[in-house]
């Protein structure tokens, strides 16, 4: 894996990423991913991409399968794989077709039961070979854990390179980054629409913060909030019809909801201090947000129909950037502890909180659509980096770019299949 990446020439415009699993989990499914037949001649090492995806999830442990000569048509010697203490085995092939496309096939085996768990085949262009690899990882993940995988989803993030800011759309492993917007002024707070087709974000291109909605496939953009003062912190309602935003047009930073096609904002609440960073719960019934109404920034929750806000965080004097898991069970946020800014995860049913990192400048957590991983920004060796972590903090992977500082990740929804 590493050798393959090192031999790949780094493209200056594209962020190249490296996956490093830095923790050890307790219960992980041992799986062997045999090298796909024909992979040596393929532009992408499919088995390595699948293996890295599964390892990053924290739920799998890779069993060495190097040297295995198998493809999806072969019936494997299950005793041999059991001996290597694998529970499952994936085999496959990649073949370049006469028209330049690639035929990718694979099969998943339960080597404990000696059972074929199914397979898939794809005919794709070279540009979609990584996506197909992520689809294969999703298939394996779902077959073996019973939950949907998130490997074929996309993340958005922002880089700053010199004086240039770029908004990127990348695969969930950080690879295959494509620029959606490049600007001489800052870009912050990208937020995927619930259907995964649009990004809302704050752009300073007119030298003040203004909220845009950007259709990713076409590049078409529309102004959503460009009122007097600052416009920021866009958050989509789960139905995609409206957004919550922070506006200062009536003085102070306050929360409003606004139609996704623009129009007149509706004020959600009135407070004396700062209200910002709204985030809808998955059921759309409440909005989590940050407020300093009690003297210091804390996370609160209010019904989308208004009413009284309820305080959610009680420990510490600086709790910001709430992100609710799509299943509604968890709240990730940043808490200042002794001068360090650290990612915390709260179990919303019990209120139990855990700090899940050992870094000191964590920012902006965002849940994977299956609620099993969090992507966040942090600093390592003085450089900005993106990390993913399991909710217990045991498995972390760095999505480390080479093209400047990386920040502001937002994990997109499940893709339509």
């Amino acid at each position, binding site marked *: 894996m590493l050798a393959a990446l090192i031999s790949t020439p780094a493209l200056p415009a594209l962020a190249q990423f490296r996956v490093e699993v830095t923790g050890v989990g307790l219960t992980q499914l041992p799986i062997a991913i045999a090298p796909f037949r024909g992979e040596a001649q393929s532009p992408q090492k499919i088995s390595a991409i699948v293996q890295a995806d599964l390892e990053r999830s924290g739920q799998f442990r890779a069993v060495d399968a190097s040297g295995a000569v198998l493809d*999806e*048509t072969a019936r494997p010697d299950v005793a041999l794989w059991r001996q290597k203490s694998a529970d499952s085995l994936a085999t496959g*092939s990649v073949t370049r077709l006469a028209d330049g496309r690639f035929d990718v*096939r694979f*099969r998943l085996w339960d080597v404990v039961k000696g059972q*074929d768990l*199914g*397979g*898939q*085949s*794809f005919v*794709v*262009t*070279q*540009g*979609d070979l990584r*996506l*197909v690899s992520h*689809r294969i990882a999703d298939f394996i993940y779902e077959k073996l854990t019973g939950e949907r995988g998130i490997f074929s989803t*996309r993340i958005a993030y922002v880089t700053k390179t010199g004086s240039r800011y770029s908004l990127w*759309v990348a*695969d969930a492993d950080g690879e295959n980054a*494509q*620029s*959606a917007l*490049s*600007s*001489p*002024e*800052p870009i*912050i*707070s990208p937020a995927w629409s619930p259907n995964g087709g649009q990004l809302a974000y*704050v752009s*300073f*291109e*007119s*030298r*003040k*913060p203004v909220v845009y909605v950007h259709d*990713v496939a076409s*590049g078409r*953009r529309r102004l959503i909030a460009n009122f*007097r*003062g*600052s416009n*920021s*912190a866009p958050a989509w309602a789960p139905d995609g019809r409206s957004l919550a935003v*922070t506006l*200062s047009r009536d003085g102070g930073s306050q929360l409003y909801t606004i139609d996704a096609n623009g129009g007149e904002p509706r004020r959600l609440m009135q407070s004396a201090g*700062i209200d910002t*960073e709204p985030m809808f719960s998955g059921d759309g019934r409440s909005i989590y947000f*940050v407020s300093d109404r009690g003297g210091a*920034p804390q996370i609160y929750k209010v019904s989308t129909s208004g009413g009284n806000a309820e305080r959610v965080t009680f420990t510490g004097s600086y709790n*910001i*950037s709430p992100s609710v898991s799509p299943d509604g069970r968890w709240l990730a946020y940043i808490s200042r502890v002794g001068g360090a*800014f650290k990612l915390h995860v709260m179990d919303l049913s019990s209120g139990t909180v855990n700090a899940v990192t050992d870094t000191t400048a964590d920012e*902006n957590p965002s849940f994977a659509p299956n609620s099993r991983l969090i992507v966040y920004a942090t600093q390592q060796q003085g450089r900005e980096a993106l990390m993913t972590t399991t909710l217990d903090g045991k498995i972390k992977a760095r999505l480390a770019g080479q093209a400047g500082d990386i920040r*502001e990740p937002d994990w997109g929804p499940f893709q*339509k*299949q």
Partner: protein
Amino acid sequence: MIKRFTLALTVVALVAGCSSGVKLDDVPVEDKNATSTMGGNTGANSGNTAQSGVAGVDLGQSGRDAAGPVGVSRIVYFDYDSYVIKPEFQSLIEAHSRFIKAGTNRKLMIEGHTDDRGGREYNLALGQKRAEAVRRSLALLGVQDSQMEAVSFGKEKPAVQGNSEDARAQNRRAELSYR
């Protein structure tokens, strides 16, 4: 009015690959014929995997400021965690108020900034508090609300790089710029 910024839109055509994904779940284990594992079906189960197309947008140069009062600083510095204008900046604010009032078509942007600690959005709100403190001071001196706008850059545009206490002190500021 000066055109604030030029917008160069470059739409980059991107490859929209096409593909088909076919589920092979129902194929018997014994079947070793690769062509039959295709299931003979490229219709109903064809998954469109070409969802990766992104059309890039490239924005050009930022705009330039118009001239402000000659020989007057345009930066107000703030203490840590403070949104109060210190007395030593009162004369600066008065000079700007006279300049704005002398030209009814002058437009002032008050840009609040913070140091690098903490979250981007929360710092945006804190920078807004600094900008609005300056706006209120100018309003008290008779500047029309229609001639000024308070906005925030949060921690996005530090005046000085670095995280020393000196650098942070120089970044906690409100900048007055004429458009």
